[in-house]
């Protein structure tokens, strides 16, 4: 096969300029990889979820009742649009695990009927026999955390009675892809699991024969969910129905949704940055190549090659670089995607991952990348087309520096080499600007990823250091009279106990409404405090509500407005209350009232849901031993455990994320610095060699290029900080959901770290360039005309 001469030239050019080409290809590869990773992971996660939901008949609506007769099911099934109903018994219970001191809880759920909803995926073993009272299936992560296998025994305290269960199988459920224990912030499979038992066993344990405590419904597609919820709530209200919620408020689903939104945001932000920088690099490099090859272009035209053929040759050169980038990006993207899949597999409980190779994602990534490279080449190619052969073959006129900052530079006392640097930067404003922008993007990527560290620390500091200062939050199985707190005060190790009450309610303001749990707390609470946005503790108002910023925004409420409160428990009263203040809060949507004011508003008197406790550090063991055995104990949230779990989980994810971002930023920084310096060196090689001949030392000559580089890098820092700050703000907006809201904490150390990383990358590239400056051929440049 004969290779056409121009293609041969393109290949040789590529080999000759391999380092610059590689630097560009890597930036392109980073763009391709992030596109594939982001899109691929997003698709994988949403496809997996969709398939899991549909195959295992995940419900659309969820509703808790205190106790309702099974006869109600027919009435519910008759609601227009309901195509499936599963009436279940769902109860929180306490497992007794030998050797485990810290409190744990399990959610007991009746095994769904054969054609029921939220069906189980058995990983091992079999479902329990309906007739056998002590058989159960446990959730996989909980089983793994405790080494529970088929045939193992699990002791569970149900409704105050210890029951030994035999594990017949290990299962997963679409309802618990993200299995969060009550009151927890992160899944902790050691301390929370799901246990499925046959309905008769639960009926017996909880005295619910012919009754149910939880409903899940499946709706016909395209149906108005609020209308069904309203109809359902009317039916369940007399039976203690706390109001139905859709998937959006179902914990597992909502967390998956948040993850998908984050991925979506990443796909929108990262790949465009890389493709933009790569296009700028292609533009710089190709412009220089074409300037250097002016005479060759003239010669080719004189020989009879058409301008299009010649432009095609340079385009081919660019596309060869793009091809290398695309292939490398495919490989890196696939590798990262596999890594992310593993992370998901650990974090979310899926029975399978739909991680098919979507050729469309790859095709799209390749196409977009090739287009970005071509776009970068366009201006240079136009110059090739326009160049008349005779003009091209004559040497170019010397660069004219007349206009380049002459007046300003005259006024400033600079060494002549300093003037050279300043005028050279000024002479190529577009290149200088795009190099500054490119470096700024590297800084921005880092700023936009590194700020999350400080933000998480701040979140933990505010939430657990200033607001929730209790050691343990004890939640009762059911509301108790206020005197129950006195019993707690007598438990060993309890130094202080503050009661609280939680009542589910729907807050309505105009057309907006949100379902929340309103928390009542004593006016003088010292352990669990409500904080104003300036972090000062807020006094509890006599009658009104304090809303977190997130809730106030969601309902468009301000201090002094009034809000309609529909209590979803007890007497289900509806009251109109003033908004007395706005508080900070990063987890969920929160509303707070003074304890007795809440009781009055809900019309229920002095009931409490539990207590926040301060413990004697030397007596925690004794406390847990007593508290877990107390019949009223529903579950215990231990602040230290919550925080350490939160930190550990985030640390794992963030380490991975930071590694990826630092790598990506380094690729950009190295790509920009290396190409910029190589081009500057190529343009000024002759001048620099002249300086050497004139008696300048190697260091003095290198300083000319390095100073130029340093100016670009330094100019890029503040711009990068600004862009990174902007991206950070956009991320906060994109990531904020009803589940959590990320505080935007951008400290100076974030800017400093980002800049240091980019500077390190720049210095490494500069060292590579320094070697080339040292090897300048003094005689060759003096013998030839540029």
């Amino acid at each position, binding site marked *: 096969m004969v290779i056409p001469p121009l293609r041969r030239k393109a290949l040789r050019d590529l080999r000759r300029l391999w380092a610059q080409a590689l630097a560009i290809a890597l930036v392109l590869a980073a763009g391709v990889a992030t596109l594939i990773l982001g899109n691929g992971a997003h698709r994988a996660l949403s496809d997996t979820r969709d398939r899991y939901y549909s195959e295992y008949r995940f419900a659309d609506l969820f509703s808790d009742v205190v106790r309702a007769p099974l006869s109600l099911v027919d009435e519910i099934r008759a609601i227009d649009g309901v195509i499936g109903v599963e009436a279940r018994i769902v109860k929180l219970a306490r497992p007794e695990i030998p050797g485990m001191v810290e409190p744990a809880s399990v959610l007991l759920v009746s095994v769904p009927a054969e054609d029921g909803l939220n069906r189980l995926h058995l990983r091992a073993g079999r479902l329990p026999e309906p007739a056998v009272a002590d058989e159960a299936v446990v959730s996989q992560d909980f089983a793994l955390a405790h080494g529970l296998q088929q045939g193992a025994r699990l002791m569970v305290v149900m409704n105050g009675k210890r029951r030994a269960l035999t594990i017949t199988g290990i299962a997963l459920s679409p309802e618990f892809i993200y299995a969060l224990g009550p009151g927890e912030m992160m899944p902790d499979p050691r301390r929370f699991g799901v246990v499925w038992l046959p309905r008769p066993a639960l009926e017996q344990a909880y005295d619910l024969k012919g009754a149910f405590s939880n409903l899940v419904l499946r709706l016909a597609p395209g149906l108005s969910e609020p209308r069904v919820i309203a109809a359902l709530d009317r039916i369940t209200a007399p039976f203690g129905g706390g109001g139905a919620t859709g998937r959006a408020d179902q914990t597992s689903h909502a967390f998956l949704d948040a993850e998908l939104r984050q991925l979506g945001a990443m796909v929108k932000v990262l790949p465009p940055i890389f493709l933009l920088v790569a296009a700028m690099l292609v533009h710089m490099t190709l412009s220089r190549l074409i300037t250097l090859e002016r005479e060759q272009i003239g010669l080719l035209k004189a020989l009879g090659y058409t301008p299009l053929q010649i432009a095609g040759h340079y385009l081919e050169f660019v596309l060869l670089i793009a091809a290398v980038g695309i292939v490398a990006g495919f490989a890196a993207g696939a590798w990262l995607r596999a890594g992310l899949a593993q992370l998901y597999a650990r974090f979310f409980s899926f029975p399978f991952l739909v991680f098919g190779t979507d050729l469309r994602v790859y095709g799209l990534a390749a196409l977009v990348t090739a287009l970005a490279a071509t776009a970068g080449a366009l201006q240079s190619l136009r110059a090739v087309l326009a160049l008349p052969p005779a003009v091209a073959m004559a040497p170019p*006129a010397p*660069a004219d*520096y007349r206009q380049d900052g002459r007046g300003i530079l005259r006024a400033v006392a600079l060494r002549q080499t300093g003037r050279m640097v300043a005028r050279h930067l000024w002479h190529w404003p577009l290149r200088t600007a795009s190099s500054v922008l490119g470096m700024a993007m590297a800084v921005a990527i880092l700023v936009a990823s590194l700020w999350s560290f400080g933000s998480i620390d701040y979140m933990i500091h505010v939430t657990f250091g200033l607001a929730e200062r209790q050691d343990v939050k004890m939640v009762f199985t059911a509301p108790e009279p206020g005197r129950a707190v006195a019993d707690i005060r007598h438990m060993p190790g309890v130094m202080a106990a503050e009661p609280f009450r939680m009542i589910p309610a729907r807050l309505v303001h105009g057309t907006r409404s949100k379902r929340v749990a309103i928390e009542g707390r004593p006016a003088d609470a010292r352990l669990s405090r409500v904080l104003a946005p300036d972090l000062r503790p807020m006094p509890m108002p006599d009658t009104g509500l304090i809303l977190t910023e997130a809730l106030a925004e969601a309902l468009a409420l301000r201090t002094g407005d009034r809000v309609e409160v529909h209590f979803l428990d007890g007497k289900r009263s509806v009251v109109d209350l003033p908004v007395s203040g706005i508080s900070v809060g990063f987890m969920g949507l929160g509303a707070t009232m003074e304890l007795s004011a809440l009781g009055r508003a809900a019309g229920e008197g002095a009931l409490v849901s539990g207590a926040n406790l301060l413990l004697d550090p030397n007596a925690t063991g004794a406390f847990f031993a007593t508290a877990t055995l107390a019949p009223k104990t529903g579950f215990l949230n231990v602040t230290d455990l919550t925080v350490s779990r939160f930190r550990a989980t985030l640390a794992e994810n963030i380490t991975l994320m930071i590694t990826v971002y630092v790598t990506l930023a380094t690729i950009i920084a190295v790509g920009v610095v290396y190409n910029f310096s190589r081009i500057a060196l190529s343009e000024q090689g002759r001048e620099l060699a002249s300086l*050497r001949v*004139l008696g300048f030392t190697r260091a003095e000559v290198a300083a000319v290029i390095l100073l130029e580089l340093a100016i670009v890098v330094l100019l890029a820092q503040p711009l990068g900080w600004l862009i990174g700050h902007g991206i950070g703000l956009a991320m906060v907006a994109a990531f904020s959901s009803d589940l959590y809201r990320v505080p935007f904490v951008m400290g100076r150390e974030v800017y400093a770290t980002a800049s240091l990383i980019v500077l390190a990358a720049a210095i490494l590239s500069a060292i590579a360039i320094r070697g080339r400056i040292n090897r300048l051929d003094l005689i060759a440049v*003096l013998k030839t005309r540029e």
Partner: protein
Amino acid sequence: MPQAKTVIEARGLTKTYRNGPTEVRALRDVDFAAARGEFVVVLGPSGSGKSTFLNILGGIDRATSGSVLFDGQDISTFGEQALTRYRRDHVGFVFQFYNLVPSLTALENVALVTEIAANPMRPEEALDIVGLSARRAHFPAQLSGGEQQRVAIARAIAKRPDLLFCDEPTGALDSATGVLVLEALVEANRTTGATTLIITHNATIQQIADRTLRFADGRIVDEMTNATRKRPAEVSW
């Protein structure tokens, strides 16, 4: 014969380039000495070794064997730093293609050197010697070829060099402009007392020199002394 006022001397200078299997001998055992203030023209066809000779004397190339003595010091034993120092303090270069820095004005191009030299004249003074005071604020792109070359000469002499080496300084210029450049060189030689070596293809130029060397095949094949030097204005080509 080396005399008391000899400033630069080459002894048995040999330069061999190896290009794959072939070996090119650019200089073969060249002996040479020049006195302070002497004006020497070096003639010879392309490839005769004259540029290599000049580059080695100027410290931008190294001989394969032999030695170069500057003020009695053997520069062929110098390391990279000492050679840079030698060029910076003692040698002025002028090249065929001027090699000015396009982003600096005429005055700034001269100042580039005066900023680093040990005992320079003021840049304005150097431009005055070559008759370009009026064009000091112009960039190279605004100057004619002859003017650019005169700026290069001013830049070379501004450090008050002991040696002024010019490789085809009029090669890219027409005759009238070339004469102006030669006049600048003669003036520079007169005012600074720098020993001046000029390489040229142009035999006419030998008339303005104290002495002429003729190179062929890497050797000095002929050496001529002028009893009387002509002024550049009196020669033409």
